[in-house]
């Protein structure tokens, strides 16, 4: 959907035609949910966060000035909503993630590196997980990531570098633990 069309829909919604909002929800729900799910790591909580994102966006629709793309503005709301949701439901989320991983063990065993990486990502703080997720999402450019996370470009790069370093050491620890376990077996 072109930005001009999006603005037309927004104007109609602001002038009272609430039903027009469903068009925007339909258009962006996939990406918003994807961001929420990747940050939170739990289907139920992510769907709730995605719903909250759209409700919050609706409430502040008259504050949207159009300085950035509507999608970027929406992803920014999704980003911060997800971080908050991840903070609140961190324990539950991690537990469910573990259940999810164990349920799909056979499928994931084919690529152990991926499993380890997922586990390592889940050990990051919600803010760290959020920024690394946005950074590696194919759909977002580096400039968009900076706008969504309310950071400068250089700040994004520095943070990503630090998180990658942290991930590296988490992975190293995990591998050492596995080696130890293998030695004792």
């Amino acid at each position, binding site marked *: 959907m072109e930005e001009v069309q999006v603005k037309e829909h927004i104007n109609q919604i602001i002038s009272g035609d609430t039903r027009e909002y469903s068009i925007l*929800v339909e258009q962006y*729900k996939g990406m918003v949910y994807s961001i929420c799910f990747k940050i939170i790591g739990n289907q139920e909580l992510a*769907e709730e966060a995605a*719903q909250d994102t759209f409700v919050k966006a609706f409430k502040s629709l008259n504050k949207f000035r159009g300085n950035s793309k509507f999608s970027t503005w929406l992803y920014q709301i999704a980003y911060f909503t997800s971080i908050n949701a991840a903070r609140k439901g961190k324990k539950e989320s991690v537990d469910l993630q573990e259940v999810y991983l164990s349920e799909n063990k056979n499928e994931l065993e084919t690529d152990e590196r991926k499993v380890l990486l997922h586990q390592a990502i889940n050990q990051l703080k919600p803010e760290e997980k959020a920024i690394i997720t946005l950074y590696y999402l*194919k759909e977002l450019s580096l400039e968009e990531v900076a706008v969504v996370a309310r950071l400068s470009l250089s700040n994004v790069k520095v943070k990503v570098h630090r998180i*990658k370093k942290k991930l590296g050491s988490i992975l190293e620890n995990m591998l050492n633990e596995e080696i130890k376990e293998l030695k004792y077996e």
Partner: protein
Amino acid sequence: MNNNLDKDLQEAINEESSSQELSSNFTFKVMDKVEQIDLKREIKKSPLVNWVSGLIFTLFGILITLILLLGERGGSIAINIDFTTLQDRSFVKTFMLVPIIVLVVGIFVFADTLLRKRNKGI
């Protein structure tokens, strides 16, 4: 090592899983919440306008009553300020009008600001 991590992270983050499917009634749920907000807004704005206009009218009534009561007998509302009668009790009565008028003007400004804010919100 770094390049491998980059590649793996990109793959891990962008891979689609079955858990990434939204429930079929997602839009319906969002629109339901949105319509509830809209209704709440409608309910919120009506009593606010009534309350403010009610307050303004009440204060007007009180002001007019006070002016009539404080004014000279016979219903005249002309105010004579005589500085030679500073010790007189009528001086206090006459000057009672000043804070009342200031209060009314203040309330007008406050009510106006409230209404403007509410209109912006809508």
